[in-house]
């Protein structure tokens, strides 16, 4: 572990440190944030950032720092959930196309083309329109919307794994299709997807926030970043902190995860 850490580049280390910070914020926001994120205090509304309220307070006098920190949980949860849904669908579709023979491949290929030609956001909007607003619907919407993109990747990875030398070597050694799939193809594809998923969580967080901005995200008073942004943005000119900080956290989280995902991609390529 130490040796591996030493081999890491500064950017990787930065990614890891940031991720740890993020995880702490998601798991135990109370450790750092001293205020109750839901506690209203109308008389303390719109206070600029200060020693007491690091990120200022919002229109209900709630502490923005606490809210942002507590928001990590739902935002990251949405990101992860969306990714899980998206990748889950993608693996099913991609596996069907990559391993299911020509007909299945053709059918899935057409389906993906169809899904690709429908704007991502529309798929998300329709999902929300059907499911209603909330954390899970938000995640489902983003997941369903991004699934075709990942399905394409999974498909091509399945195909390239299937055509790889190691699969051929396994066939020559007399391994059955099931064994080859279980021991070689799936583990290799899934290992790559892990990096991809990390990249995707960041983007999913961003997408989910966009839904919130359009008024379709998480139901108040949930401390999700997108919802906070949507609520704080009207006060952009008078209380900039309500827009800047949640936004910065979205960027920060998405960037951290992207950084990490890229590191993992590079590592798996180097291996």
């Amino acid at each position, binding site marked *: 572990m130490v040796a591996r850490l030493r081999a890491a580049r500064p950017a990787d280390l930065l990614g890891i440190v940031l991720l740890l910070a993020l995880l702490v914020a998601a798991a135990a926001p109370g450790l750092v944030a001293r205020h109750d994120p839901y506690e*209203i205090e109308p008389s303390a509304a719109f206070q600029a950032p200060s020693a007491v309220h690091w990120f200022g307070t919002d229109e209900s006098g709630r502490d923005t720092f606490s809210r942002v920190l507590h928001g990590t949980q739902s935002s990251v949860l949405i990101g992860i959930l969306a990714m899980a849904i998206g990748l889950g669908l993608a693996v099913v579709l991609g596996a069907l196309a990559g391993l299911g023979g020509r007909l299945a491949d053709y059918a899935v290929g057409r389906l993906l083309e169809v899904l690709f030609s429908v704007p991502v956001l529309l798929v998300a909007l329709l999902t929300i329109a059907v499911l209603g607003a909330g954390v899970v619907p938000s995640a489902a919407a983003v997941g369903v919307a991004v699934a075709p993109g990942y399905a394409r990747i999974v498909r091509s990875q399945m195909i390239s794994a299937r055509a790889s030398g190691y699969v051929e070597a396994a066939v020559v050694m007399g391994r059955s299709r099931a064994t080859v799939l279980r021991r070689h193809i799936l583990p290799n594809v899934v290992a790559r997807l892990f990096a991809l998923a990390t990249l995707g969580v960041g983007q999913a967080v961003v997408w989910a926030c966009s839904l919130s901005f359009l008024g379709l995200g998480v139901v*108040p008073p949930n401390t999700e970043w997108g919802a906070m942004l949507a609520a704080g943005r009207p006060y952009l*000119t008078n209380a900039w902190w309500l827009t800047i900080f949640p936004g910065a956290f979205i960027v920060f989280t998405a960037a951290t995860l992207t950084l990490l995902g890229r590191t993992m991609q590079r590592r798996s390529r180097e291996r």
Partner: protein
Amino acid sequence: ACGGDAVNASDQPRSGGTLVYATGDDEPTCLDPQKGGNVAQALLGTQFLQTLFYQNGSGEILPWLATGWKQAADGLSWSIEIRENVKFSDGTALDAEAVKANLDRIQAPQTLSNTGRLALQKIAKVEVTGPSTVRIDLHQPDGALLESLAQVWLPIESPTAFARGLDANCLKPVGTGPYMVESWTKQDSVTLVRNPFFTTPPPDAAHTGPAYLDKIVWRFVPDGTSRFAALQSGQVHVIDVVEPQNAAAVKGIPTLRTLIAARPGEPVELELNSGRAPFDDIRVRQAFFASIDVDGALRSVYLGTVQRATSLLSSATRFNVAAPPHVYDPAAAAALLDQAGWSSRDADGYRTRAGKRLSVVLPYSRFIPLETGFYEQLQATAKKTGFEVQLQPLETAKWWSVNNAWAYDAIPVYYTKNSPDVLRITYTTAALAESTPGSYHANTAHVKNADLDRLLEEAGRSSDDGRRAELYKQAQDLLGAGFYTLPIHDQQTRLAHQTKVKGLRLQPSLAMPDLYDAWIA
């Protein structure tokens, strides 16, 4: 309650120019307010449509497209004189036939009028009695008839234009106002130009003759931040639906000014569905009101720019009776709930009765002028007493469905109307519309009270102001004692404009902006 910039005498009004108005209200689906009938239509319609009567700042009815009127002794018939030599902007003449055509049209079901139709419910028939006189026959006396006919939702439009069909009329209604519709680019803007046939300025206008402005571009800018930024950067001249924080900011900007006035009717209020549990119990309703800190919310969310409403009628409506507002009193609320049997609490701190949580469904929508922060504070304070408030942000159409289906416990509403008769429309048993389920019902609080019905019916029939005042007071007291409605703040017209825009005023009947006198310095 309303007013305009006093036109500075040293500034000579200047003709010409294009005024850009950015509205934050929804884009109408039809420019003809006879169809449907909402505020968005009224805002635009005020610029190119006019009514038979005009209501001035003190609530008096003045002639406008009508020149005179006479009520029969039994109160069941009105005869109205129509102004002569008035032309619609398509060049056709206004006459008695045209007025009858309009009143009939509003009542016809295929017109799909809502606001107008409700206002004319008491009309039995309209008859042309001369080239410039009509007679309106009623089922029962209607003290609010003239007030109704002074609302832009009941405008007099060109019957020639009606012949084009409902949809065509929606695109380009033809009226007698100072401007006329030139074009409508959906989801962008409506362009209005000066009406060359215009002869009928509002009675309290600052000038006569044609409007000053060549053109008005009425842009739909739903995003409040962008709207205000556009005003600040000089890109637009006037904006409406100015958000409180921006209204506060205008005070520090010398080139900008606000123009804010209450609209008549019922204020923005929270109504409790007394038709189902838990709010079928008056104690629970009372406890709910006592567990909400309205004042605190208004002060913080609205930065003190909005006054608490104290009456069931807007401060701009005649006969409103100020009552002491409900105060935030968690202790009293707790006591009431204990009495009502909601005495135990569950793990999340919410009150329960017989294993059922004290839960309140509150659907709201963006078009109701209350900020998200207000709902959140309501939710947070009510939680302390043990109410679980389930907020449901909904899109407009969905919100109406929920409303029509009675699927709410508390619901924010408002009703714009220039008459205390609004109470009859929204609180009588008839307004429950129980005979047709899934239908619109104005009685959102589900009030079913024969005494109240009687009071409001009589008030609606009466034309004696003294009697009306008495009846409306009794009605308001009765409603107040029932804890159905929590008034929050008056619905307002909230404009901000460049100081170089002069002569901007509001028409008192509905407090709609009127750009007839407006000019750009």
